């Protein structure tokens, strides 16, 4: 695949992620912080987000399996996930956390379990989208091109 085609594909793909609210302007802010001296900044931050989110999803699963659920603890985890998704611009994950926190406040187990499923879904969706985006970027770089802004 030629370089120009790859670049066009990346721009279209990236645009679609914003359009579908997988990403928001905070992700753009991250990209603006990347430069020649810190060429992997975005990938590094997003990788931290992946690790941290998966840890939190595991914690949430465990916490909601307990006989006596500690909703404060559940809420604390969701709060963290909401914060980190906001920090990288993963808007749909962030928004799904908001509903989750409401159910925590109500101490509604069913609501929480449903939300956990939704958050997990949104997380894995954005993860696969971002991985695809990074893969396209790599292909462009390997072909000797630069990533279009």
């Amino acid at each position: 695949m030629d370089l120009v085609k790859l670049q066009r594909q990346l721009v279209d793909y990236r645009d679609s992620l914003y359009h579908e609210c997988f990403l928001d302007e905070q992700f753009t802010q991250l990209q603006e912080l990347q430069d020649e001296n810190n060429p992997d900044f975005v990938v590094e931050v997003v990788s931290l987000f992946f690790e941290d989110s998966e840890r939190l999803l595991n914690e949430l699963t465990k916490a909601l399996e307990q006989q006596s659920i500690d909703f404060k603890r559940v809420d604390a985890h969701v709060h963290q996930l909401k914060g980190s998704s906001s920090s990288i611009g993963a808007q749909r994950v962030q928004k799904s956390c908001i509903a989750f926190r409401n159910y925590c406040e109500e101490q509604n187990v069913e609501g929480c379990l449903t939300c956990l499923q939704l958050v997990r879904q949104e997380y894995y969706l954005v993860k696969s989208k971002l991985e695809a985006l990074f893969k396209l970027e790599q292909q462009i770089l390997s072909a000797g091109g630069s990533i279009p802004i």
Partner: protein
Amino acid sequence: MGMAADSEFHVLAVDDSIIDRKLIERLLKTSSYQVTTVDSGSKALEFLGLHEDLHDRIDQNTPSVSPNNHQEVEVNLVITDYCMPGMTGYDLLKKIKESSSLKNIPVVIMSSENVPSRISRCLEEGAEEFFLKPVRLSDLNKLRPHMLKTKSKDHCKEQVDEKTAFPSPKQEGKEESNNNKRKATEEGVSPERTRPRPRPRPNGITTMV
């Protein structure tokens, strides 16, 4: 690139989120500040040389904390997350402002939640600014005037009588501290961000009343 003076400013960033630590570090470095990041209020106090009732431990697993752990490491500003387990950003702010050796260090609070009562509480306790997360580069432009105030006096722990010791910072700072504070219309501030009420304090005096 930038003023040489900027890299003389050392900011201590406190946040329990590893993602946010990475982000604030990059933002601060992009603004040409030296940065140290720690993941808790207690580690922040250790770094600042305040031991209180903490054990004298140095966490080897946090490479960004200075292993020297002595009071000579000059910190020109502390920027801290509000919501942290254990010691909150507010608790940390209080401890800094209650310490005779640290109270002149400007403190900025960050929070993902826009809670007006929280914001005013922090400002009343002596925080210089309150940033809503995610923090932007434009937010960090507000930091320099606060740090210039601390640079304008000799970094001397014995200086306790602030009222007579310091000249008006107007000469040093680019803007008067009251003017640059929380102008809602500056720099494309997003409409959801609450601009906190200005904290009443006499013009030109850097320390809290």
